[in-house]
């Protein structure tokens, strides 16, 4: 099993819940996919459980988006391999509240 240190950018409100800054680093056991990154986030920051994806179905919350390497990864299956630059830590995996709200 490979392990990689992944950089993750969190939206403002989730930074506040987790008491962290805009970017966190996580050890993620491979393969490195959106699903395994989310698993690692929820293990290290249980207060974020249910705020990014559903507790039971694990579906992404509809107003959130995943980005990386200037690509929208939101609609990729959760077990899709991520770009090499995210796996090496050169680029962050970005979780973003993508829809504007009043």
């Amino acid at each position, binding site marked *: 099993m490979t392990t990689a240190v992944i950089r993750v950018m969190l939206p403002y*409100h989730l930074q506040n*819940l987790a008491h962290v800054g805009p970017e966190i680093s996580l050890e993620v056991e491979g393969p490195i996919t959106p699903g395994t990154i989310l698993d690692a986030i929820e293990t290290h920051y*249980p207060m974020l*459980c*249910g*705020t990014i994806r559903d*507790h039971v179905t694990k579906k992404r*919350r509809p107003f959130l988006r995943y980005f990386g390497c200037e690509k929208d990864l939101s609609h990729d299956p959760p077990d899709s391999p991520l770009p090499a630059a995210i796996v090496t830590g050169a680029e962050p995996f970005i979780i973003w509240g993508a*829809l504007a709200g009043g």
Partner: protein
Amino acid sequence: MSGVRVLVGTAKGAFILTSDGKRETWDIAGPLFAGWTVYHMKGSPVDPNRIYASQCSDWFGQVIQRSSDGGMTWEQPGGDVPMEFSGAPPGASNKFVYEGNPGTHMWYDGTPHPFEFKRVWHLEPSHTDADTVYAGVEDAAIFRTTDGATTWKELPGLRDQRSNEWNPGAGGLAVHTILLDPRNPNRIYVAISAAGAFRTDDGGTTWKPINRGLQSKYLPDPNAEIGYCVHRLALHPSRPDVVFMQLHWNVMRTDNAGDLWTNISGNLPTDFGFPIEVHAHEPETIYVVPIKSDSEHFVHEGKLRVFRSRTGGTDWEPLTNGLPQKDCYVNVLRDAMATDSLDKCGIYLGTTGGQVYVSPDGGDHWTTIVHDLPRVLSVEVQTLP
């Protein structure tokens, strides 16, 4: 000297307003959970420093917050990485999962729609245990925690009451009112828009609809068991069989725990509204805030008037001293009126315009505590020793 702590939930965060027993000068703390919608906050009657809050967002879903020091600091129960296995799963304080297959309810277009948890509208802490809290949620169901909101479990018997026929109100299909009988721990009342009022006498295992005597225009069956848009229930702890109701239209009361309701709208200028409250020391003194209509959700004639009945309904008097009586077009939502239990009972209300008002003398005189908060969704009051 005794004092009060007012817990205000708004569309963009929570605020805590504190004062001494005179209720003349106020400290305002907040916003807590800034930018989030706080549907409701309520303190434990057993331990006033224990406060629970429902924080939610269309983006990030539901979060439950808990304070053990009167609102100075907050935590998500079970939100930290567990140092050792305690038996409770981490990160489950916002996990509201229906028991079994919840099936469907009616959608606005009359088609079946799957039950889906959306948010917690109301938190009702137990009278006897600070770790036990009931949560009324959308889509309509009631949950209970016995571990201080670390985990929640549904009381699914409520949905056995023909929940496949429940229709959402304009604001959604939610359990928005939970009343615990202080004399009988097995009796709980709930209200659901737009399904009606329900009661359990066995601690939440089985429930029955308690809607006889209610009337709703255009309901095809005037004697229907369910289908009523109940906006709010209230009771006095000394007489828990007497329950007052603000129905969509009509103000109602029951003297037999909901087995039969009678109309007490009397001389109200309009009997549409949302909140209803009972005076802390006078079980027959009740308060409502009439709203012009269900098409125009603001107060009647541009005047914010609380109406008080000292006779348990039917005869009402307007309370206006200190409230805006011109060019006022706010609403007072169902959970946004509350009372304290000081010797001179205080009445509190929050408006959709962001004002919070207090009357320290049972409604005779009103002052503004704060006037520029976000839209106020809920107001609860703790009377402190």
